[in-house]
Structure formats: C-alpha cells, structure tokens
C-alpha cells in the first residue's frame, strides 16, 4: 500500500493528469502535490494521487527500480504492489483508453 510509483505526465486537465506508467496510461489526481505539474514532469503516485513532483535529475535512478520490478515474476509481492498502485490511478482515462 505504501509504495509510491513514478510516472510521466502526458497532459493536465484541471486537478487530473494523464500519466504514463511504463506504457500504461492512467488518470492521477493532482489535489495533493504541492508544486505545479506540467506535461513532461515525473510524479510519484500513491493510491491514485500524485504526492511529489520528482526533480528531473533524479528521474532515471528512481525509474530503474520500478522498471526492474515490473519485469519480475507475477508472484512477487513487491511487484504486485507496484502494479496495484498503478491500478490505483483508476481504470479509465480521460481519453477513454
């Protein structure tokens, strides 16, 4: 439940951003994040809400963990938690994808 997952912002509409998580596009609420978020930014997602805009210089190393986890076997609990956190951003996206 507590593992944040980073994703790249594709576009922003009001309090909701369309975010790309390793090829999966989801809506993320922007109510909580304390900095302006724009397309191209990376954010840390926690249960469907962006909790932090990740400074660009730290992006690669932060993403590396999750990319590796997502390649891991299906019965891996940490990878499963990451997947459920991506799911937490909702089943639908603004463009209906």
């Amino acid at each position: 439940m507590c593992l944040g997952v980073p994703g790249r912002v594709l576009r922003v509409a009001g309090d909701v951003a369309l975010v790309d998580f390793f090829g999966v596009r989801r809506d993320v609420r922007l109510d909580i994040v304390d900095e302006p978020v724009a397309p191209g930014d990376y954010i840390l997602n926690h249960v469907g809400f962006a909790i932090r805009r990740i400074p660009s210089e730290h992006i690669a190393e932060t993403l590396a963990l999750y990319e590796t986890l997502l390649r891991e076997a299906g019965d891996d609990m940490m990878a499963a938690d990451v997947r459920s956190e991506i799911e937490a951003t909702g089943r639908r996206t603004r463009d209906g994808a």
Partner: protein
Amino acid sequence: MAPDRDLLASELKFRDPGRARALAAQLAAVTHEVGRAPVAVMHVCGSHEQAIAKFGLRAAFPRDLQVIMGPGCPVCVTDTPEVDEGVALARQGARIATYGDMLRVPGTALSLADAQAEGGRIEVVYSVTQAVELARKTSDEVVFFATGFETTAVATAAAVLAGTPPNFSILSAHKYIPPVMEIVAEMPDTRVEGFLAAGHAATITGWGIFEHFVERHRLPVVVAGFEPLDILAGLVRLVELVRDGLPRVDNMYPRCVTREGNRAAQEMLWKVFRPVGGRWRGIAHIPNGNLRLREEWARLDARRRFHIDLAGLWDEAPAGLVQHCICGEIMAGVRSPSDCRLFGKECIPDAPVGACMVSSEGTCRIWHQYGAVPELGAAP
C-alpha cells in the same frame, strides 16, 4: 545537510553490485567501530522490509547489526475491533469499500472476507476515488473502510475535500506513524538505538517532524528510500550516528523528501482528520496514533452515521489459535517470526492467524514468502 551526503544519496544507482559491496563493507566497518555488539536499529516501513527480504540484503548486513522491522505495516496494526466495525456494517447492509490487503485481516470472529462469504457486500478498491465513484453509481450506503498511514490518509482527506455524495461515509482506521516511534523508544525491553524512517511518509510530513523525537529520546533518525542501495546507504549513515552518539535527523532520500514536506498535503490532512489515542493491534494504546474525522465532517463519519452493532459479533467465539500469536511482539521488535510456534505451521498466507501473515507488508508474510532469513547477528 552536508553536500557530500546529498551527493551520496543522489548518485546511488539501482543494484550496482560494486556500490552495494562497498556500502556493505562500509556498514560492517562502521558497525564494528561502534565497539559493542549487537547494534540494533529499527525501520518502520513494510516496503523497507520487502526490499530487504526481496534483495537478500539481510545476508549482506554485518553479523553484529540487527535490523528490526517495527510497526510499519498499516494493515497489521489495524486493530481487531476496527475490523469488527467493518464486518458489522457489512452485516447491517452497507457496501464496504476497502483496500485489498484488508480482506483477510482477522477480526474477533470474522474477517471481511468471511463477511463477504456469508453475503456481505465488500468491494476491493485501489483508491478512495474508486470508492467515491462507486457511491455515485448507487443509492446504497457505501462505507470506505480507510486504512493506511499518513500518506494514504492524505488521499482520503483530498477525496473528502473534493466533495462526496450523500450516501458515502468513512470508517477511519488511519494511523499516524510518529507517535508509535515514541512508544517503541520507551518500551522497557527495547534495544533499538536508531530509526530508519520511511521515505514516502516523510514525503508528506517532511523530515523535520522527527526533530522533536530525536530531542526527546536522544536517538538518531535517518530517512531512507526504497532502492536496495538507498537502504544500505541509510543504514551506514544511521550506524555512523549511533557510533558517534549523534542524536539527529539525516535525510538520505532528498529526491523525494524535504525538511518541510508537502505543506499543502499536511493542511489537507489536518483539515479533515484529528489525532486521537487508540490501540494498535498487538502493540499498545498509542496516544495520538489514530486519525479520526474532525467534528466538521461528522456527517461523513460512519461511526456517527450508523449504530454499529459489535456486541453480536463478540458473542461468537474467537479462534483459539489467536492467543498464541506473537504479532505484537514481532512488530515491537522484541521477537522474530521464527520465535512463533504458529509461523509456517498453523499460520500461513492462505490461512493467517495474525495480521502480520496477511499483508504483503507484514513481517511474517514477507519472511514466509522469501524465506525466513535468520538474523545473522543474533547472539547465541
């Protein structure tokens, strides 16, 4: 914070074996320099334990360093009567929306999964947003059984502030981490000499929140991230502070954590919730450890909206094995899963006796999944 440590923390690359070996060697050297054994530190985050177990870090820790998992699993510390409230509301006809981890957490007589099996309507959601959407689509009463620490509570607060339909309410079992660190630090049996604080909770609260704790208890706190090298680097720094007798807060996760934290999120949290004392399963009564809805949100508070009939549940006999469960002592850091007579026998992930075997962040579940790696430093 000194720039060299900032650099150390930010330059870390995931699973670089060279750096891992170097950090492990540094950890061993620093632990040795403490000059007594064993040195015991505690982390308070299920995700830290997952990373430690999954990447086999425990085997890389020096023999004289004990890294204890504290009460860092929000599902595990959700108290039995809180689960009972959810079960009772389901029996009373409400639709319960909750995070999937909660389903099999044992109540006094039933878990939410048991309630579902007997016809209760329990919906697993990944986000509070989904629970609100569910309420919008139905005229049934929807109760969001809200669990998790401050990071998750902020999401609940944001949903409340964004507006909810009239048939939506919240059964809050949210918990707040800083007060339980105080309790663990004050336990008479505790051997804990420093804390590794969870990076994502600190993203919200900021690392400054630990300064008061450090002043009161004279114990160092290091904020760490979740990559294996983040954890190793965090432990090196923590043991250095133990060695030097420096009770202070260091932030080894600067890419996500600042001193002030996310102030907007803190404002939302405290606008919706207030801290109250309450029991954490197996640990103790924790002053200010539970988050409950403020008076202004009484209409959203399931505890006020419904008369929750718990007495009916408590008449049903509780399971006999529970009395042997030592989850509380495990979360308090005084015993390990291997000390439990039920672990891996009567208590397994498919049939958990204690909450620590339920959640993917529970110590027993993690040890069962990845192998019960013994504390290499445990003294005979």
